[in-house]
Structures are given as C-alpha cells and as structure tokens.
C-alpha cells in the first residue's frame, strides 16, 4: 500500500490480509511487554486538524507498540482562519523527515490533496463527512471475530446482514463501512430518516430503510451512528426524543435483535439518544471490543504501510522514507517470534 485513503481502495485479499495481521498484532496486546521492533527508526506523525482523543490515542499506541517514533501535532481550526494554507502546513510537517502522516481533517478530501504535495505515506484517520477507513477495518475485525465465535465454520461475511443506523449523511464511518462491507460480501442496510440519508444513496451498493423495527430482526450486526450535537439544531429531525423513538436502539428494540447479533458503535456514544444503556452494556455489545480492535488494526495498517523491508535504523530516517510501491508484499511478522 502506498497510502490508505479509502476503504474502497482495499481489495478483498488486502482486507483479509490486514485483518489476519491484526489478529497477530492483537496477541501483542495480551502480553506484559507490548513492544515489537518492527518500525524502529520510522517516524509517524499524527496530524489532527480536528479533536479526536480516541482515534489519535489509538494510532499513537499502535505506532509506539511497533517502536515507531510517534509525534502528535494538533492543528485544530481552519487553516484559512490562521492564514496558513493546508499545503504549507503539511509541507512544514513533511520537511521534518516524516515517514507516514496520519491525518484527521474536518474537511472531506483533505488526505487526497495532501498526497499531491508530499512524498510521505498518508493514512486517512477521518476526513470530514467522507471516510474513516481504519474505523471500517476495526469494525470488520470485530465483526469477523464475533461471527467466528457465534457461528464457527461459516464463511465470515457472505450472507451476513449489517444495519448501519443513524446520521448516514454526515458519517464517514458509514461511508467507509459501506465500501468495506461490500468488498467483504455482506449485505448492508442503511436505516435513517430521509433527512439524514445521503443524496444519491440509490446508487450505493446498499438497501435503505426508514423502519428500524422491520430491519432489526434480520441483522447479524447493527452499527449505531453517533448523532452529532449540531444536527439536533439543524432541522434534520424535530427533537432528540422523536429521534430516539424512531431510530434509537432502545431497550424495547433490543428484544427485536437475534440473540447472536452484535451491537457496535464507533463512539463516543450519546447514551439515551441513539443507544440505550441497556443496549450499550448488553452481552451483545461489541463496543469495547471495537476499541481494542482499533489498536490491533492500526498496528497492522502501519506495519503494512511502513514495515517489512528495513526494520533497522541503520539506513537513517531520511533514506528510510518509503517512496516505492510494493510494500504490501512484506512478510507478516510473527509477534511471538520477535523479542
């Protein structure tokens, strides 16, 4: 992989490869000493133009457990208002000798633009209302584990139905999940009020519904999306109460789910709005598994992007900056075999 920008860029083989690698990475998490030397001497910058404690922490831990030097740069606020262009900001960061740039930006498409300006590898950690590919990967990781546990021997995603519920219009999590779940072969049902269904959704590889009660009994997993505060005053729905009645995973609705169905939420949750405490804390909830999966998946992605060929710092950081294609052929590490 040269960059990871869109979940749609990943083939089935690449996706499976990342998920398999993440399984190996997760073994590291279980150990008392959680460090692999794989990315020693590599520099990863988390360049966040938007606050995000959990995604930034997750990338930071992932990078550190792979022994990369991880630097966090917060560039919150519009670059326009600061008088510095996005290009100048990323050129400044790249000039410090960065191998990979993990970018979170409040505007859709920013990571694509960044790849036009710098040589470092770019990892999209969420761009506006567009995509969040590592979230889709960690969701797939979580669901794959869940499916393998609840129905061992079955094919992972084929024939599975996943409902994505809530503010699809403004959700990068939904867009990346739609793309990745399609690659994995799952059936996706988007459930939202018409005001929060993206324009042109008819051309997406999904089914759509406005009736959560009708959808829930048939799903293998339900992903509840966060309702952003600014949507509540945006006229997308009359009141939070009405939203919950129509589209919240309430205690009553919990009874509509099959016993083996998984409940996911990318966080942070609005308990009582899109998800009830009963649902979030139920035995079917995979929400904390998602958080743990986030680290494993991001380790796998960072390794796929940066690792494999030259794990030693001997070449120096400038020379170690990867500019070539073909790193996806790097052999997967065996965490047990290292250290």
């Amino acid at each position, binding site marked *: 992989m040269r960059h990871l920008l869109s979940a749609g860029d990943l083939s089935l083989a690449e996706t499976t490869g990342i998920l398999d690698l993440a399984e190996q990475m997760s073994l590291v998490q279980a150990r008392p000493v959680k460090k692999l030397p794989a990315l020693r001497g590599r520099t990863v910058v988390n360049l966040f133009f938007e606050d995000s404690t959990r995604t930034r922490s997750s990338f930071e831990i992932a990078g550190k457990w792979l022994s990369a030097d991880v630097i966090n740069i917060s560039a919150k606020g519009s670059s*326009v208002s600061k008088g510095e262009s*996005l290009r100048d900001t990323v050129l400044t960061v790249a000039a410090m000798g960065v191998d990979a740039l993990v970018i979170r930006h409040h505007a859709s498409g920013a990571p694509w*633009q960044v790849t036009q300006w710098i040589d470092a590898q770019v990892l999209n950690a969420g761009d506006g209302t567009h995509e969040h590919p590592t979230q889709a990967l960690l969701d797939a990781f979580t669901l794959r584990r869940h499916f393998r546990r609840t129905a061992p021997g079955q094919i992972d995603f084929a024939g599975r139905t996943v409902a994505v519920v809530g503010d699809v219009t403004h959700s990068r999590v939904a867009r990346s999940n739609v793309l990745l779940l399609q690659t994995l072969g799952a059936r996706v049902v988007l459930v939202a009020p018409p005001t929060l269904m993206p324009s042109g959704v008819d051309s997406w590889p999904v089914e759509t519904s406005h009736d959560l009660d009708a959808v829930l009994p048939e799903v293998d997993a339900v992903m509840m999306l966060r309702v952003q505060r600014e949507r509540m005053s945006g006229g997308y729905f009359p009141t939070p109460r009405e939203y919950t009645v129509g589209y919240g995973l309430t205690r009553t609705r919990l009874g509509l789910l099959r016993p083996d169905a998984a409940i996911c939420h990318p966080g942070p949750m609005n308990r009582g709005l899109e998800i009830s405490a009963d649902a979030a804390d139920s035995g079917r909830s995979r929400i904390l598994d998602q958080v743990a999966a986030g680290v494993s998946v991001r380790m796998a992605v960072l390794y796929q992007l940066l690792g494999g060929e030259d794990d030693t710092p001997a070449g120096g950081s400038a020379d170690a900056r990867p500019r070539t294609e073909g790193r996806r052929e790097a052999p997967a590490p065996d965490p047990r075999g290292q250290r």
Partner: protein
Amino acid sequence: MTITTTELLVTGADLLGRGRADLLIRDGVFADPATAGPGAERLDADGLVALPGLVDLHTHLREPGREDAETVETGTLAAARGGFTAVLAMANTSPVTDTAEAALHVAALGRRGGHAEVVPVGAVSKGLAGAELAELGLMARSEAAVRVFSDDGHCVSDPRLMRRALEYVRAFDGVIAQHAQDPQLAGREACCHEGEISGRLGLPGWPAAAEATIVARDVQLAELTRSRLHVCHVSTAETVDVLRWAKLRGIDVTAEVAPHHLLLTTDEVQGYDPTFKVNPPLRPAEHVAALRDALSDGTIDAVATDHAPHARHDKEHAFAEAAFGMLGLETALAVVVETMVNPGRLGWEQVALRMSTVPAHIARLTGQGRPLSVGEPANLTLVDPAARRVVDRSDSASLSRNNPWHGRELPDPVAATVWAGSLTYRR
C-alpha cells in the same frame, strides 16, 4: 502592449461568417477601405472571421484589494488575449464598489491600463451586506455611468430589498444582475452540486433548487416592478425552464452562462482539486446539455466568464475551505467554439450576439457590440476557427493560475483584438 497606428487595414476577413471584406480602421472607427492610404499597416486576415469585440458581463478584476491575485491591468490584458474589448468588473472588491467614488476609481484604472473598456458594476447593497440599498443613483449619475448592479458572490436574498432595487433602478434604465443562490438552501459551505457525487464525497451539497427558486421569485418581482432583471451564471436545467416561462410571459429578463458550465461537469471535483471549486458549482451532464440548448435557442442571452482569479495559497486549502472561482477570460471563446460552434449549435453571427451585441445592450454600452460598419467604433475580434492548442496555465496574462482548462486541448481562436481602433492583442 497597445499599438496605435494611424491606419490599420484588415484584409480578407470573413465578417461574422457572412462573406469576406476588408476593414479599414482609422481614428478609432471603421472607415471606407477604399480610402486607405499607402502607409496603412496591413493585417492579413485571410481565413479569419471578424466579430465585433467581445463583451464580458461578469469578471472579477480584484483591484482594489487583492492585487496579488489580479489587477485591472493584468485582467484586461487577459481580456484582450481572450478577444474581449469590454469587461464589467464586479463590485466585490475591497473596498466594495458601492459608491460613485469607488466606481470612478475602477473606471479610471481601466483607462490607465488601456487594454479594454472597464465598466464598473455597482453593488446592490451597501458592503454587499444584503440589508440596505447602496447609492445606486449616484453611481448611475457619475461619469462611470453604472447601469449594472450586482451583489455577485452573494445573493440578494431578501425579497423586499430585491423588489426595491429592481424598482429603483428603473429610473435610470439600470438592471439588477442577480447571483441566484438561496442562502438557506445553499449556504457558504455548499461547494458541490447536491447529488450522487456530493453524497459519495461527503461534500456539502448545493442543490439545483437553490438557484431556480430564487430565479422564479425574481422574474415575478421583475414583472411586478416592470423592471430589468439579469440572471448571472445560470447553472441548472430548472433555471432554464423558469427563464423560458418568464420570457414567454414577456418579462424583461436576460441571463448569462459561464463557459465552464458549458463543458465541465461535477465529475471534475472527484479528485478534490479546488481548481474545480466554483460557485455555482459544476453540474451533471444533463444540466450542461440544457445550458447548451438554452444558449443555442436564446433562452440564455449571453456568455459571461465569471473570471475569478485567486492567489495560489487561497486555493491550497482543503476543498471545502478553498476559494470559489476559476479563470475564464482567455479561454471563453475557445470553449464556445468547442461546445457551440464546432457542433453546429451556433453560427458566427449568433456568437457575435451572445458574446458582444447582447451583453453590450444589457449593460447599455453604446460603443460596444456594434456592427462592423463604416463610422462605428473599431472594436474587433479576429477569430481563427481551426487553430487548436493544449491549454497551459503558465501561458497567461492573469496573475493567477486557477485555470480549469490546464492540460486540455481546446480551440485557440483569438488571432487579434482591436479596441477603440488599437491592436490590444495579436497572436
């Protein structure tokens, strides 16, 4: 630079496609070619089509205020290279052209540059704020003789203010040029046609209805006030339908289309390149087709560039945060030839109407858009119908490089431009 000679004899040009003739230019007007002196400079126009000098109803020359992006001097140089002999300079400068003094300043800058007639557009509202009328009458009565008023960049969205503006300018034969964008339906953040692509790319949508609903309201206000309305940069099929209805009804409405809306579609924004961020946004192909039809049948009266130069750093932001607008002066005729003339949708006489005569009339410019006849002001564009080139953004008189046509092969039609008897451009 402008070259002034006493006599210029243009030989063998095809006048608006009607037939070949010589044109003699003397003292700023066309004279009888038979009277050409032996010392007359000759311009061989064999194989070229002669059109009246082009008139652009819609440019942003950025001076005063953003001289790093464009000046009246460089903007009019670009105009001359594009075959234009007159440009209307929109009011959204800094300071805003909302007083007679500001209008006079812009007109004077144009005279000093000497590459094309610069006609200031006056703001409709003070500071483009959309609240109170600017001093429309003083701008009209000044030597700048402002006739076109526009808050372009902003919609005059308050229907009461729009009604009063239309009514008020009737006293001096003014026209309100509306930037039709309902700010409630398409706010400042709206940057991509609302549809499949905006939904997929996660870009704030700009629905077609936000334009057509304002135009539907405004044509009725024009009817109510018996005044003149001009619709800037029409971008949707729905607006075309409204215009057709209004014109059938006899409402005094005119409309312009920008070259980029005649050829580029929403597909261009898929790489998030802010060069293709423009307001109103690029629309899907069905809108482009409707706009070509409307330009062909006269529902849309004029082509106007909406030439919008921007300093590089104002375009090097995330797509949603980058400046709106693209260059247009140097490539407008090329796009019209490509999309309208070559496919047989417009003949040269109609090109002259859409790009010179009619815009001049809308702006009440008495010395522009005139016939190529003896005694008329010598404003002339010589067109090479066959030449083509690959557009190179660095080959430009503009100070800015936000050229959406860079790297694209287009006609290269402008062979020479004559303004007020002087050669302002020669290829």
